[in-house]
């Protein structure tokens, strides 16, 4: 029996082994959000059942909520009604809700980490495909649908099959301006959007360990864009430091005991996988998507690729993406004016992201013809950014400084890119229409997004000094 971190984590949560290789897994933490949460509760009630463990369940309002000042509407038809229903269901069931007026409200995957709801060694299930984000803390985390959420509400368990493990090692020294977002885009470019299917991704390597815990979350966040539901990271001292003192983290003696347990859990694991992917980060440049799939990625200074020569299926997909994005093979992304910059989402809206972005904004103005916004990942991040003076830097440069939520990433709260317009976004999906009708999305890091807002086109702020 393999003894990798994934195995240890998995085995400790098995309540029962069912026929067909399915395990009944204990859910330590269950999170729901406003887009589908009400549906899960109403299905549960329709079945005559109730919430088994409200104290292990949390609700967060993030998808449908206005990001405008004072949450001013309008947002999206039916949105306010869904939020209201979610508020009622959580209140009736005794579930703690981070609602519209809660000062610690934010994006569910950011809130769960900063509140200490997600911790090393816990199983954390959330009704959202980016639930894998908190795998960065050493949690066993994945996303579920409404039916599975209903199952968890009723039983505090989930039926699941242990995935295979793909070990991904990022080695080498990170070049200037290259971070978590670039590493994950490079990985998706390498293995494709279905490369991780059937696997959990375990990240490691000195290039990875050099990242902050927040930046590791960025890497885990987009595992689903590589086809994998689960990303995990063996926790280290930096992880424990991150978790210490958080609202739901253990305190006092419990903390000491937890720490000892977590250290033992991470110590001496087999560092192997059913697949191994090695990425040398020392040669990476900032990565940007050119197309409509997260695998359509290039280095920021590289030409847009030519579909000629690709096999039929890939070629037709690339041709469709080129046409949608208004690009031709050989084009440079820096030659195209942009109309939007969106800094936000569960991928890149943490304090570190905002600090790194602000560096490229300070003392500059957003280019004419560009609408730029920052949507902090949570109320805590928003307040911290205001205290540190980051908010003022963005505001002085002409950015809109918004209230926390999913905003223009999910684009179901009224925040959208205009028809056919080009947007540099720090979010995770560049699908057709994701950010609005015919919206052209380029995914990039917060640094690139910020510098691009000032330049009015996609730029690498380190281009002069880069080898």
């Amino acid at each position, binding site marked *: 029996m393999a003894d990798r971190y994934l195995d240890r984590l998995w085995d400790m949560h098995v309540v029962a082994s069912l*026929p067909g290789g399915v395990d009944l897994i204990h859910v*330590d933490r269950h999170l729901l959000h406003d887009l589908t949460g009400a549906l899960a509760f109403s299905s549960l009630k329709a079945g005559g059942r109730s919430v088994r463990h409200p104290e292990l369940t949390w609700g967060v309002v993030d998808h449908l909520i206005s990001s405008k000042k004072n949450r001013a509407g309008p947002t999206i038809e039916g949105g306010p009604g869904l939020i209201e229903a979610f508020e009622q269901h959580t209140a009736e069931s005794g579930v703690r809700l981070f609602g519209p007026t809660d000062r610690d409200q934010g994006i569910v995957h950011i809130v769960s980490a900063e509140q200490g709801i997600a911790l090393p060694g816990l199983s954390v299930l959330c009704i959202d495909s980016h639930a894998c984000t908190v795998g960065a803390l050493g949690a066993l985390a994945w996303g*579920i649908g409404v039916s599975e959420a209903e199952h968890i509400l009723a*039983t505090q368990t989930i039926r699941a*099959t242990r995935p295979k493990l793909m070990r991904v090692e990022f080695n080498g020294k990170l070049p200037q301006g290259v971070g978590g977002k670039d590493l994950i885009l490079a990985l998706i470019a390498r293995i494709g959007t*279905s490369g991780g299917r059937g696997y959990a991704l375990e990240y490691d390597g000195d290039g990875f360990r050099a990242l902050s815990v927040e930046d590791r979350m960025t890497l885990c966040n987009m595992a689903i864009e590589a086809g994998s*539901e689960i990303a995990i990271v063996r926790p280290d001292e930096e992880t424990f430091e991150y978790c210490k003192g958080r609202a739901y983290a253990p305190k006092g003696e419990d903390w000491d005991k937890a720490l000892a347990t977590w250290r033992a859990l991470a110590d001496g694991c087999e560092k192997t996988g059913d697949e191994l992917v090695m990425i040398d980060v020392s040669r990476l440049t900032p990565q940007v998507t050119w197309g409509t799939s997260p695998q359509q990625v290039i280095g920021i200074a590289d030409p847009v690729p030519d579909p000629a020569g690709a096999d039929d299926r*890939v070629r037709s997909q690339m041709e469709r993406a080129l046409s949608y994005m208004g690009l031709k093979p050989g084009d440079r992304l820096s030659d195209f004016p942009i109309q939007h910059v969106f800094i936000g989402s569960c991928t890149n809206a943490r304090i570190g992201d905002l600090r790194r972005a602000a560096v490229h904004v300070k003392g500059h103005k957003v280019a004419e013809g560009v609408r730029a916004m920052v949507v902090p990942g949570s109320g805590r991040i928003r307040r911290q950014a205001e205290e540190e003076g980051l908010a003022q830097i963005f505001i002085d440069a002409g950015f809109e400084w918004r209230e926390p939520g999913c905003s223009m990433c999910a684009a179901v709260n009224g925040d959208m890119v205009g028809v056919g317009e080009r947007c540099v976004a720090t979010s995770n999906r560049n699908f057709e229409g994701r950010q609005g009708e015919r919206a052209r999305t380029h995914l990039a890091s917060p640094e690139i997004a910020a510098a691009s807002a000032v330049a009015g086109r996609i730029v690498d702020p380190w281009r002069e000094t880069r080898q």
Partner: protein
Amino acid sequence: MTPFIEIRGKAVPLMMADIDTDQMITREFLITKSRKGLGRGLFHHWRFVDGKRVEDFPFNWDWAADPQILIAGPNFACGSSREHAVWSVMDYGFKAVIAPSFGVHFRRNAYKNGLLPVMLAANEVEHLAEAVTRSRGKQLIHVSLPQQTVTLDDGPSYRFEIEEEPKAALLEGLDEIGLTLRHAAAIGAFQEKDAPRRPWVYLRNEY
């Protein structure tokens, strides 16, 4: 859940690779308190542009009305875990989807709702799509879950694999929550044993 045993019906192909669930059901149909009636939203912005039917979109082909089986390209329904994608496919009338591979969330969500996702080799899926298109839908496809086969009226029969547990659940239309609650004692025992080892997991409301 309605059981799935077998079906013989008209199929329609949609062979693009990597179709994501954002394409299947767009934002205006996503905001709903009900699982019902989502069929009209399925691929709505591909079926209609500026209020007009897109005649060359497969669902709008003159022979393609009321299909029961969807033949799709690789990595079908990747992306967001929105279960609306499954509900809309089912409400449109599909009982099974045949593809070389599926997005992970879609496949699991399909099982939970009684929609059968069938995985076949890419060349087999392509053969089915071609045969159906060439015959303008006259060649029906028979999908049998007990036999684990997909059979074209005129032609080959392909075997597919499916895990034991979803197969049993689909065949009997089982309520998984009810099944799991039979393990209620085991869940309680797990928690009781686990709590002294990991007290920080078991929060109390006043924590």
